[in-house]
């Protein structure tokens, strides 16, 4: 489920056999939990295979929590959050870190962008920030949300569908590195990607509010009878 550009990158990556290195700190969005909604977190994968997650608490102080150890098998990164019962997995053949999480009866996704942090697992980032925006956890503000056109062939075939695209937003507000994490039918690929790439977010100052941020967008294609 890749764009042409990502497909070329995938081919190149396959040819070079260099999977993504998860070690480091990542600014991530978790989505798909019906009770929690979308969550912005920091994930840290240390060289000793320890994993930590940080959320901004109500009083603004950072809160790092240990998760299970991360492991890689067959190009797939996995770790778990015992408190929420979520099992996380990520295909390291992608150009950025992201994948799906599962519980016994829920399924969601997560998408990350790398955070520059020269010291430790991101402690400085959260400790330094009294303003949520400075930690890169402020919400992205859509400036242009382009609506995809419903393919006429899909209407004729009475075909409905769902697409989830994850991407990174630059401080300029531009969308780049889109990747399909869910695509119910190929017919919805082009209009979804076209709409996303015509969209943009409100820009921010990277010096105060951090660098690129991950985000995902769902497109749900529905048909209603008029008779």
């Amino acid at each position, binding site marked *: 489920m890749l764009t042409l550009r990502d497909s070329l990158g995938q081919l190149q990556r396959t040819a070079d056999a260099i999977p993504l290195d998860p070690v480091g700190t990542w600014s991530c969005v978790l989505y798909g939990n019906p009770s929690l909604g979308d969550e*912005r977190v920091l994930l840290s994968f240390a060289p000793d295979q320890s994993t930590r997650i940080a959320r901004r608490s109500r009083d603004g102080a950072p809160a790092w929590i240990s998760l299970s150890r991360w492991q890689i098998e067959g190009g797939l990164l996995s770790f778990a959050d015992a408190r929420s019962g979520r099992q996380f997995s990520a295909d390291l053949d992608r150009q950025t870190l992201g994948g799906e999480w599962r519980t016994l009866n829920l399924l969601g996704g997560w998408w990350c962008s790398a955070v520059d942090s020269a010291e430790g697992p991101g402690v400085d980032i959260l400790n330094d920030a009294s303003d949520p925006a400075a930690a890169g956890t402020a919400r992205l503000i859509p400036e242009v949300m382009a*609506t995809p056109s419903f393919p006429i062939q899909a209407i004729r075939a*009475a075909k409905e569908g769902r697409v989830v695209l994850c991407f990174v937003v630059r401080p300029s507000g531009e969308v780049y590195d889109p990747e399909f994490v869910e695509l119910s039918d190929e017919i919805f690929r082009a209009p979804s990607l076209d709409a996303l790439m015509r969209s943009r977010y409100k820009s921010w100052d990277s010096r105060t509010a951090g660098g690129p941020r991950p985000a*995902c967008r769902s497109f749900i*294609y529905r048909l*209603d009878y*008029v008779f």
Partner: protein
Amino acid sequence: MSRSILIGLVWASLPVLAWGQTDNRTILGSGNEFLSAGSFAIRVGQYDEGIRLTELGLTRYQPSTADRAAAFSNLCAAHAAKGDPDTAIPYCDRSLDLSSNNWRAYSNRSYAYFLKGMYSEATFDLDSAAALNPDARQVLQLRGMINERGLRPRVIMEDHQ
């Protein structure tokens, strides 16, 4: 597009019975040549001529029940192709009264209802046609036409961040 659908719906509606017959007897039901000629005329788009020949075959001779059902289905198709669904529908009704397993008659009537904007009725008849012949090209094509008119698309967008 409508003609291409109807060509398929008229084709082979009638069995070729009288061609090559050498017997000189007067045969009841020998008006099939008019029905066959009418079927051909409708297929090539000569709707008025096709209607005339088909009605000749129905009124002057005594075709079999099967031929009558096919002829009424063809008249339905021809009138629908002329953009006269109100005249077409009763012919399809009569065809289906004679033979209820004729998928073409259901499909012709579905098209007539489609022309009238009666998409619910059109869908009902098309479902009947599809039950008898699900792979018919005309059924699939008409399904797409009905869906294009009868379905309103919407896209729900949600950001996750």
